[in-house]
């Protein structure tokens, strides 16, 4: 669906911002670009919708190289969510959400019904907020409008740049939870930039960890935790390792050590404990999984 091949970009001063980045995201997957500030993750994201042009390398969206696609059509086919929402202050909530369908020349009634259905799904009652202006909304509401705007034309791809980064921790957790539950995003291909490790593990099917403009490792959360490619990857997760492990492992992963326990294989260990399944059994199984990884250890 989206593929980067050896993409590089230098700043105006010649310092490399992104060096030879490659990864691939399949349809329906969520790839998290994770890293500290200055790691090149936002630059990488913005090269996908050509807000920044790469110096070298190829980028494909929907199988075609991005430079061969008409710029406006490429962008209108990609939902884009920014950290500081970037809502148009002179447009109402309804107009903000309907802007991309408008650019795509949908007829007015279709836009109106699409806007109304998205606002319902994102808990923004139409009667209260359709004609409100962005400055009249709370931070969480503004971010929901930004998300609705990105989803309005139902694009197959979403690019999200620290979408919850400007929110306080409580609002952040609740907006994130709503986002995960949203049926609109279930089949979308998503690339999201964040520096928040917990967020990466909650939302990502895959994580691409970047540092100093280079990809350190790309893989599932469990791969990064249990088979780190280098010392940087290993130390990056050390602080929250225990919680992250429980969030990264599903029951399927530890099934060999759970002879007696039944349950939904897709559930994470963290969610299973929260759901009241026997804690000690689960933690023992995780421990044995960890040892088995260590024995065949990659590092």
């Amino acid at each position, binding site marked *: 669906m989206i593929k980067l091949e050896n993409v590089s970009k230098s700043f105006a001063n010649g310092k490399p911002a992104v060096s030879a980045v490659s990864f691939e995201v399949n349809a329906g997957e969520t790839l998290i670009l994770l890293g500290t500030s200055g790691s090149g993750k936002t630059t990488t994201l913005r090269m996908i919708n050509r*807000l920044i042009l790469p110096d070298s390398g190829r980028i494909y969206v929907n199988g075609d190289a991005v430079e061969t696609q008409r710029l406006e*059509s490429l*962008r209108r086919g990609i939902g884009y969510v*920014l950290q500081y929402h970037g809502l*148009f202050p*002179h447009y109402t909530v309804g107009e903000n959400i309907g802007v991309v369908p408008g650019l795509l020349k949908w007829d007015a009634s279709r836009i109106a019904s699409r806007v109304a259905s998205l606002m319902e799904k994102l808990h923004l009652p139409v009667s209260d907020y359709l004609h409100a202006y962005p400055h009249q909304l709370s931070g969480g509401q503004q971010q929901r409008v930004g998300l609705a705007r990105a989803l309005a034309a139902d694009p197959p791809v979403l690019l999200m740049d620290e979408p919850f980064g400007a929110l306080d921790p409580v609002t952040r957790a609740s907006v994130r939870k709503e986002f995960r539950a949203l049926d609109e995003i279930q089949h979308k291909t998503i690339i999201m930039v964040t520096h928040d490790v917990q967020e990466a593990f909650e939302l990502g099917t895959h994580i691409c960890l970047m540092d100093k403009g280079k990809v350190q490792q790309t893989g599932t959360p469990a791969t990064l935790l249990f088979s780190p490619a280098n010392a940087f990857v290993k130390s990056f997760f050390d602080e929250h390792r225990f919680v992250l492990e429980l969030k990264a492992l599903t029951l399927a992963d530890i099934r060999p050590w759970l002879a007696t326990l039944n349950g939904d294989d897709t559930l994470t260990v963290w969610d299973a404990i929260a759901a009241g399944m026997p804690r000690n059994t689960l933690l023992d199984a995780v421990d044995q999984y960890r040892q088995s990884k260590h024995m065949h250890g990659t590092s």
Partner: protein
Amino acid sequence: MEPANSFIDFLQQESGKILEQTLQHIGLTFISLLIAVVIGVPLGIAISRKPKMAAAVLGFAGILQTIPSIALLGFMIPLLGIGPAPAIVALFLYALLPIVRNTYTGITQVDPAIIEAATGIGMSARQLLFKVQIPLAMPVLLAGIRTATVINVGVATLAAYIAAGGLGEFIFGGIALNNTNMILAGAIPAALLAIIFDWGLSRIRFRKVLLMPLLILVLSSFYLLPDFYGSKLLAGFTPEFMGRNDGDVGLKKIYGLKIRTVVISDMIMYKAAFDKKVDVISGSSTDGRVKAYDLQVLQDDKHIFPPYYAAPIVRQDVLDKYPELEPVLNKLSGTINDSIMTALNYRVDILKQSPAVVAKEFLEAHHLLQSPGPGTKGTIRIGAKLFGDGYILVNIYKLLVEGYTDLHVETKTGLGGTKICFEALTNAQIDLYPEYTGTGLLVILQAPPSTLDSLGGQADKVYNYVADAFQQRYHIKWLAPVGFNNTYALMMRRQQAGTLQIKTISDLTKYLQWN
């Protein structure tokens, strides 16, 4: 001050003119504003995309703004002549800076996150501009247009100097004539226009912005130069001449002269006549430019222009304090007749010699020059009006006073018109200035018609009357007349006057009646 009801009377008498001038004023303001918006907004948008160009363009527009408005109008005359065209161009140049700068500021101050969002969701550069940047820049842009409008309402008063009409005709006429009612009849509507337009434009919100070009177009169309007499010849009269009994009023009443008239500054009037922009002007008989531009003075065969003999007028308290002053100033009496004064003016105005040099050489020739004393006894401040004779006379007086007394002299030239000069004298900001008997009689004393009839335009009688009246009313003394008579005169290009066989004002009246 005149009583309040006389201002109302003035408004009623002149209501037609006030309306006409107001409409011209609105027209001038908005035509230039329209052009400035049409050029300035796209220019502002263009430079918002090219920061390197921005500094140059804004710098250039800023320099235009610092040119004094009267000078800018002056620069326009060689290029565009007189009338509405140079006035509109000058106003356009003044309106340009606030509009370009505010458009630029408005566009560049849009939050970069919003620009990134708009670009990222797939707006084209054009959509970005019209859907996002311009709407968000609109409050700042409109503020720029408001500023430009208010500037233009103010500067448009100066259009009266170059025959483009507007409320400046009353304002400058009133200043020249010491007529407060006339000044107010121009200044109050001008101030009201500025306030009303500023308020009106502040009411315009983004969604109504499309109405604005329409509004500006409608207001622009007010500028239709009224053309009451479709006469063959065009007269250019000064604001002062237009309002005087011994000026345009007298020409109409005594001669029955009907001529299409524009109001024009005396600074450019002679040149305009020479360049055939106007045919008849209200010059002054001793002006150097009469000689330079080969103009013919029309004979005042019905004697409507009273004598204008120049003499220094001095506050009595100054004479009491420095009694040596009077005999020194009177040394000049009888030395300068009309043709000498015209020649002196010609050297200063046309040959561009320094008035100080001309004054010195004149005194030398008359054996009146003495080297200055220490100047320790006190300081005498001598004023002069803006035009011709004054500059030279002031320099002559300075040399005389410093040569024959121990007084030091400061000169204050360029004191607008009669009103400004006379008030500076009565308020002791200057001690003396050269004045004309006719101006004293008609402008300062505003002598009633019965008095004018009894004086009968005779030089001696007029001099004695103003000397007595000034002493009684203002404690100001008229010293001995210098000798020349700088009276008003109608003048035409010598060649045209010859062709049309016009020698007197009566000839001119007849010519216009039959053609």
